[in-house]
């Protein structure tokens, strides 16, 4: 009986997951749900950001939490129906000294959940200008500056939220960047004006982004733009890299990455590759993923002439033993949701670095922007568009047809001429006889 029930549940889950795909969704966004700003919490929750978004489909709902509490992160939870909501224990979450486990809960039993944590922004001095941070050992002098993202203060999310287009920008506060001893009031007078931003965009249906690199999206995908703007570099040859973790509630899976190469770069001129880092291959055919093209831009007006490369490095699996020793990730919303289970999840970490050799480093424009798709399901695959196919067919097809027709015409003409000559000769013979 229990076995039959398990089978039924698995079937339902499978059915839901299969249909949690490319349906049209209604999106709503809310900042700091359940936080009553009239009650004075020490510290107040308007200094913390939880952006809660619901994407309601016909049969299920995806709940997103974009946050800068602790480490910047995204948590995605799949609900089997449309009625769920999140319940946050603000008292505990706003207190840096308590354990944040299970402070973020949902009113339903999640079908699937996955998340990403962005832990450190690495700044490295690229002595040999190869844009490869693995060339430098961690102990090397005069090479590394590590920006731990939980030390940052963030602008309130309602300053930069666009409810109509479902876009929210989580931007760091510039003053805190260089300060070592920060307090809640900002006495630290630094002339640092730089910011780092995470721009999250949600979509209700399918389409393709209007901004380079024109990544495809559907209703199960959110686009993330990472912008490193105007940071004063520590070294003369500074370059940046981002450390990120991808985790999911799959029991048996491990994350894997796939690079696809294509001859077609029509959507992102000059970029022929796509990287998919997904959490699937566990007990279901698809799961959460992050997808990106290895391109970043060093001007906010993106174009091929200001494109640079994104390099990815090896994936480091975080097994339970390693995770038990590393408590840093407990300062994050995914931990607030998963609790102690975080240490048993399948989790991998990797770094991506930005820059191309000989591009004059970050300080050339003091701007880097990178876009990625974070979503659920099968990562979209770029196909050669109809327009290009038609252009190739006509542009090459017409000349080929002309050549073939011309060759046939010439051949026939020659045969006819030859036949005529033969005919004339045989006629003249017959006249002789």
């Amino acid at each position, binding site marked *: 009986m229990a076995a039959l029930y398990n089978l039924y549940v698995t079937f339902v889950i499978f059915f839901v997951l299969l249909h949690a795909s490319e349906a049209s969704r209604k999106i709503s966004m809310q900042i700091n749900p359940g936080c009553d700003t009239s009650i004075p919490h020490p510290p107040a929750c308007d200094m913390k950001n939880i952006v809660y978004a619901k994407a309601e489909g016909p049969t299920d709902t995806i709940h997103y939490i974009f946050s800068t509490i602790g480490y910047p992160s995204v948590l995605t939870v799949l609900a089997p129906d449309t009625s769920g909501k999140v319940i946050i224990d603000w008292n505990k979450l706003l207190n840096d000294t308590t354990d944040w486990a299970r402070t973020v809960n949902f009113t339903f039993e999640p079908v699937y959940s996955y998340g990403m944590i962005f832990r450190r922004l690495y700044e490295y001095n690229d002595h040999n200008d190869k844009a490869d941070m693995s060339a430098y050992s961690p102990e090397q002098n005069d090479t590394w500056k590590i920006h731990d993202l939980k030390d940052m203060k963030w602008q309130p999310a309602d300053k930069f939220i666009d409810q109509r287009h479902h876009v929210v920008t989580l931007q760091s506060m510039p003053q805190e960047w260089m300060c070592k001893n920060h307090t809640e009031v900002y006495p630290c007078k630094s002339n640092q004006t730089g910011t780092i931003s995470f721009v999250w965009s949600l979509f209700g249906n399918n389409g393709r982004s209007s901004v380079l690199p024109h990544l495809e999206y559907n209703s199960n995908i959110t686009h993330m733009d990472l912008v490193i703007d105007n940071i004063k570099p520590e070294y003369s040859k500074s370059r940046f890299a981002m450390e990120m973790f991808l985790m999911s509630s799959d029991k048996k899976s491990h994350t894997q990455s796939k690079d696809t190469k294509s001859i077609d770069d029509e959507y992102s001129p*000059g970029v022929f590759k796509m990287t998919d880092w997904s959490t699937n291959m566990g007990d279901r055919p698809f799961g959460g993923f992050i997808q990106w093209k290895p391109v970043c831009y060093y001007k906010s007006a993106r174009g091929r002439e200001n494109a640079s490369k994104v390099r990815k490095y090896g994936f480091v699996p975080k097994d339970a033993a390693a995770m038990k020793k590393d408590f840093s990730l407990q300062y994050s919303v995914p931990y607030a949701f998963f609790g102690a289970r975080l240490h048993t999840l399948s989790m991998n970490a990797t770094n991506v670095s930005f820059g191309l050799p000989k591009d004059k480093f970050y300080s050339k424009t003091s701007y880097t922007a990178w876009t990625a798709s974070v979503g659920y399901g099968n990562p979209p695959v770029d196909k050669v568009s109809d327009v290009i196919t038609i*252009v190739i067919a006509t542009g090459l097809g017409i000349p080929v047809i002309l050549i073939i027709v011309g060759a046939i015409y010439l051949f026939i003409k020659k045969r006819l001429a030859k036949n005529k000559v033969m005919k004339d000769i045989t006629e003249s013979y017959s006249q002789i006889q």
Partner: protein
Amino acid sequence: MDKEETKPLLGGDDEEELTGCGATLPCDPRRWLHRFLVLIIMCFLSFGSYFCYDNPAAMQDTMESVLHLSTSQFMMFYALYSWPNVILCFFGGFLIDRVFGIRLGAIIFAAFVTVGQVIFALGAYINSYWTMNMGRFVFGLGGESLAVAQNTYAVSWFKGRELNMVFGLQLSFSRIGSTVNMNVMQPLYNSVQNIIPGYQGLGVTLFLATITCGYSMCCALAMAYYDRRAARILKRDGGKTGEVIQLKDVKDFPASLWVICIICVAYYVTVFPFIGLGLVFFEMKFDMDPSEANLVNSLVYVISAGASPVFGFLIDRTGKNIFWVLTGVTFTLGCHAILAFTFVNPFFPMITMGLAYSVLASALWPMVALIIPEYQLGTAYGLMQSIQNLGLAIVAQVAGSIVDAKGYLLLEVFNLAWLCVALIATVLLYLMDASKGGKLNLAAWKRKALAAAEPEKKPL
């Protein structure tokens, strides 16, 4: 016996007697060694122009930072050369045919090149962007027309003999000039910087580059002297019909010339703009680092520098120019297809493209000499070069826009379409030529036999 009785009865009694060193092998225009020594002078005629043409590219970063230029301001140095030359080299060719003659024309255009480069250097010395632009414009007035003069000289000295190889060699020298420029100018500037810093140092460096133009000027003067001497000794003017070109003759140019111009444009627009945009393509699609990508990108130039004279020599021996043109176009078509649709290491297609380009350049340009009489030749070459410049200038912009909007795959498809046009034009040329007796595609031995048979037709 005195001289009177040893003189041959028929003709030959006004052969010039060469005396002293004029009679030795290298100085006798009737013999091959003199022709080849003059060939060296002929090749260096536009060396200065090719060297200085690419000075901006060799020092782009320096110029942009020292003179505080944006990339589009920098590109003006090239636009001011190409756009005026869309019309100018046609008129330059016409002036050579009608007004100045080849000797004075070459000297005048070499002077424009030198003066233009001096103004350009002066502009850098006083940090005046507009003076530099004026310098480039004057430089352009001479540069392309000087190339037309060089082509006309080549036909005059080598028609019916080693013309294909000579064209190949001239192409070689243009590439060598450009490569030497790329490798020499930046280190030269770095040394000058130690003594004279800033934009003044840049000006001095560009003045030093003017030396090559001065050398070309000397070559133009030398060519004028040797050409006049050879014309006198070989009695070239005796064969001239006394006809002079009129501007309206242009519309009577044979249709084959126009088809050759189409082939020229349709082919060249798939090579040069592609190399201009190729660096990022090789870095991104084939994962090459910048120095490797630079090497692959420059393969076409490097290979054509070496292979053009060799292929030219081969084409001289075999003839059948149209067949060689067809080969060049077809192989380039294959190369672009491989670069577009596969991930094969780009070394192979680019090397092949370099070879195909050498073949085509050596076979295409001499064909004009086979269908246009000598007194119209400067104009014909000027026309061909004008059309080529127009095509390159327009397509360079279009290619950049295509890549920015829709990527490299579409650019390659664009190139393939142009190559198909070139292919169709070549086949058309073959048909037109075949219907008129097949002059352009003769095997070399046949061509020589026909040329030898002709003098016998002259009245005694």
